[in-house]
């Protein structure tokens, strides 16, 4: 019959309409502030810097200021200045490590190129600020987060990273 497709379509939408009142599983939208959030172990948005010692976060950063991530970053949102010791000799630690999160696109390339497992993806997303320049430029103090935090947000991935680091240590250790 002519027009049967239209009637079929109308029944489908009517089924959806009434179904949405009876089955909660149909309404997948999360009502954000009061309905919680949907952060999972696979969520990622901006990078953070991993440190190991909770007593000295900045000194125990894994970052060695090799600047590979700065060079690889497609939108070029990372800015690194290497630190110097008392004699003016460059040391393996960043003096400045800034990420402009208004530019960062969360591509995870910095994480993939880092040979020292020092930069990882964060899943914290409530980053709004009152100042559109200062509040969106994160310094190393704000970016530094402990390995425990990494274990909390991405447990499986963090365990794998720890194993890898331990194996590396073992290999280098006896020598």
């Amino acid at each position, binding site marked *: *019959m002519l027009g049967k497709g239209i009637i079929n*379509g*109308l029944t*489908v*939408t009517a089924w*959806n309409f009434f*179904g949405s009142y009876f089955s909660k599983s149909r309404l997948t939208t999360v*009502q954000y502030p009061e309905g919680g959030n949907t952060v999972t172990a696979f969520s990622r948005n901006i990078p953070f810097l991993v440190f190991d010692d909770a007593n000295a976060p900045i000194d125990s950063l894994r970052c060695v200021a090799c600047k590979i991530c700065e060079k690889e970053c497609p939108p070029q949102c990372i800015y690194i200045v290497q630190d110097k010791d008392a004699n003016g000799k460059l040391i393996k630690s960043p003096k400045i490590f800034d990420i402009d999160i208004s530019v960062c696109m969360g591509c995870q390339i910095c994480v993939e190129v880092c040979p020292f497992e020092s930069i990882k993806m964060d899943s914290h997303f409530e980053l709004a600020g009152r100042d559109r320049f200062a509040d969106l430029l994160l310094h190393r103090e704000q970016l530094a987060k402990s390995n425990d935090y990494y274990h909390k947000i991405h447990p499986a991935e963090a365990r794998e990273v720890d194993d890898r680091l331990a194996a590396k240590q073992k290999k280098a250790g006896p020598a």
Partner: protein
Amino acid sequence: MILNTLLDNPDQILVNLFHQGAALLQACPALVIALGILLSTVPLVAIFPACFAITTWLERKGLARIQNRIGPNRAGWFGLLQPMADGIKMLLKEDIVPQTSDRLAHFLAPVLLLIPAFTVLSVLPFSRNMIPAAADTGVILFFALGSISTLPVFMAGWSSHNKYSLLGGMRAIAQMVSYEIPLVLSTVTVVMLTGSLNTVKIVEFQQVTHWIEGSNPALQILGQVLKWNVFTPWGFTGFLIFFISSLAEINRCPFDLPEADSEIVAGHLTEYSGFKYALFFMGEYVSAFAISGLAVTLFLGGWSGPNIRPWWSEDPRALLIPGFVWFFLKMFALILIMIWIRGTLPRLRVDHLMAFAWKFLMPLALINIFIAGAYYYLPHWIGWPAGLIVIYACYEGLGRINRRHLGPKRIYRYA
């Protein structure tokens, strides 16, 4: 005494109150006329924008549920204040007029669109004795005034000096002119059978007067429902044709080509912002109400609905529930169907749109006129089934003839 007359006719309370007021002002006829004008225009200008606000909320909620979303739920209880929030937003927005536009036409277009949209409401009988302008040529007047609304749309498209606007305006003209023909032809059947262009008479024609004025409550209810034009073969076909062409006439989905947002930005609305955009929006919805109101009047029995006479009343024509309740219920039912269709059907292609109007709806409407004529002369027990069979055969036949021009069925494969 006054209270008695009021209570005798619960459906006529507003009308009788007006007559009582007019009687008090008898000394000054000019004042009575002024009162009459005010009382027939102010409610239209107040109620229909309110209906528009409710409808925008209904539409957003309905479409959301069709797509398994929740819809507006922040402003007020169940998001009921959302139309107010939208209105305030629209009012406060900057009114941007393109530098190269024709400023006068650009300004006039939204205003001119509202005028016919509101004027045509005045020929609709909202209840017994409740019609702003009881013109003898109501139906003609409706279409004559309603067809003006094509012009502001093109004005908007032309004056914006924007190719998308112009394309939208041209599409609107082509579409509205084409669909006006099946729209008017489908009403011809009703006018033929009623023998009048008067909307009041058309509603009365759809009631069984001696049942309503009789003493049996069941017959009183049936007498207000059974004779609706939509329950006849020609009336049902006419109603479908009328409804489909009215969708095209008011640029609703699936005929929203003039403002097709995925093709031509927003068509004639592209260069409008702020309150002018809101006026366009309101004009469109008020014309949707008007044309649904006419569909209700012509095919769905107007203000008559399952209704009984109040048991205490002496007046044989008195009714318990005011007619405008049924009128607005039916009108909103049609609006809800429009929303449902909007949530279901994709937009037509331009050539399909034209072919549908000229090759399918217009021949069907013409055939429908002949069937209505035969129905008038034949006894009903032959006319009803015979009409149904003939109209169904024509419907299928026209569909087959039109399908012949399509090529072989295309098969889509994923790459």
